[in-house]
């Protein structure tokens, strides 16, 4: 039986970089079913000069996805350039694959995280507060920090409730120049599939399905839920950051200028959420941060 090499190129976070990731996924999917005499899949990093956290979370999640399909995937140790080796050691990627590899913390990295189930909500909150939004990276009042963390936690909660990902959720981040990035990915059903099945509108374009999913009050669950992206979206726009979501063939990009929903030709079996915040010299706080006296009835 032979090993199948999967070449990992330089991957940042432009549209074509995300397409590279989805092509890697497709190559693996295609080979899973058609070629039975593959011993292992091997990541070959010899052409990779830079790798961003979206790729790290994605590639590690793919490893777990393959393991759940009883296939092995590993990496060619000699293929790692020094810079890439150092980065993958620092965010825990190598240590998670091979515990003999040293885990070296590095200041600008947000560690790779694996959550198989919802039971770790307090740990996820700590991760988001202390690793992704430490106080020396971006000037936020405690209330703003808490509000962002609460909203991003809802992304995890939604993924656990809706995605039915057989392998859980993977996150990774990094501070690159003056931007903080966080990628959260699951390999579950994807939002468009959930929405089109719920609404019984199987011809609905993925872009429309995503738009429906992110409207306040909409949910595919029986309970009263669905408050959309709310504050996170508002903050990203104010901060001149970006919020990008890939799910199935659906894609949405939200920034200060626009919210653009599209249906792409590439397909992701799951959902990838990518948040970019700008580290500028502003101090972000709410206009009113105290506990107010209610001017009108609450109900």
């Amino acid at each position, binding site marked *: 039986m032979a090993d199948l090499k999967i070449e990992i190129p330089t991957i940042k976070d432009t549209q074509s970089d995300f397409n590279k990731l989805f092509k890697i996924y497709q190559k693996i999917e295609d080979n899973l079913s058609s070629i039975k005499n593959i011993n292992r899949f091997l990541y070959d990093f010899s052409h990779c000069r830079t790798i961003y956290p979206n790729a790290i979370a994605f590639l590690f999640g793919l490893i777990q996805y393959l393991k759940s399909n009883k296939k092995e995937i590993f990496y060619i140790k000699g293929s790692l350039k020094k810079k890439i080796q150092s980065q993958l050691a620092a965010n825990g990627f190598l240590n998670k694959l091979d515990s003999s590899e040293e885990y070296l913390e590095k200041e600008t990295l947000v560690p790779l995280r694996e959550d198989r189930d919802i039971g770790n909500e307090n740990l996820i909150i700590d991760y988001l507060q202390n690793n992704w939004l430490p106080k020396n990276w971006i000037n936020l009042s405690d209330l703003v920090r808490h509000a962002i*963390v609460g909203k991003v*936690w809802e992304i995890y909660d939604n993924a656990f409730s809706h995605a039915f990902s057989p392998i859980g959720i993977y996150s990774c981040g990094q501070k690159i120049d003056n931007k903080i990035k966080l990628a959260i990915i699951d390999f579950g059903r994807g939002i468009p599939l959930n929405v089109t099945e719920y609404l019984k509108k199987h011809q609905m374009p993925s872009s429309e399905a995503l738009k429906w999913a992110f409207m306040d009050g909409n949910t595919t669950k029986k309970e009263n839920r669905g408050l959309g992206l709310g504050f996170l979206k508002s903050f990203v726009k104010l901060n001149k950051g970006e919020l990008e979501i890939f799910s199935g063939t659906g894609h949405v990009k939200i920034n200060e200028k626009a919210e653009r929903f599209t249906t792409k030709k590439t397909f992701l079996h799951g959902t990838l959420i990518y948040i970019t915040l700008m580290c500028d010299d502003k101090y972000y706080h709410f206009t009113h941060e105290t506990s107010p006296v209610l001017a009108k009835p609450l109900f």
Partner: protein
Amino acid sequence: MLIKIFEITGKNCITLEQGKIVYDSIYPFLIKGDLVEMDFSKVEIFASPFFNQAIGRLLENISSDDLNKQLKIKNLSAPNLATLSKVIENSKKYYSNPKHRKAVDKTINDISQNSI
């Protein structure tokens, strides 16, 4: 009745399950007309699944007017109060939705028939 939410949930009020625990603590008092005060001091992180279950769900069986008279919220910052207001607004629509009401009515009828 005063309920200190931090003593039940800790500093994170984020999950559906936490919301259910709080709901189960306050509902019996509210349904019989008692006053309930919810104190959110020391709680830091909030998420809508918690608010949906703990407070939004009260609208299923208790009117807005009664809740305004009986339920007091303390030490919740303006931004979190805004989130709670949105949850309440959504909950009002959800629990007044005829489809939902139809499902509830059918369930009640089924239970009634099975009890005869």
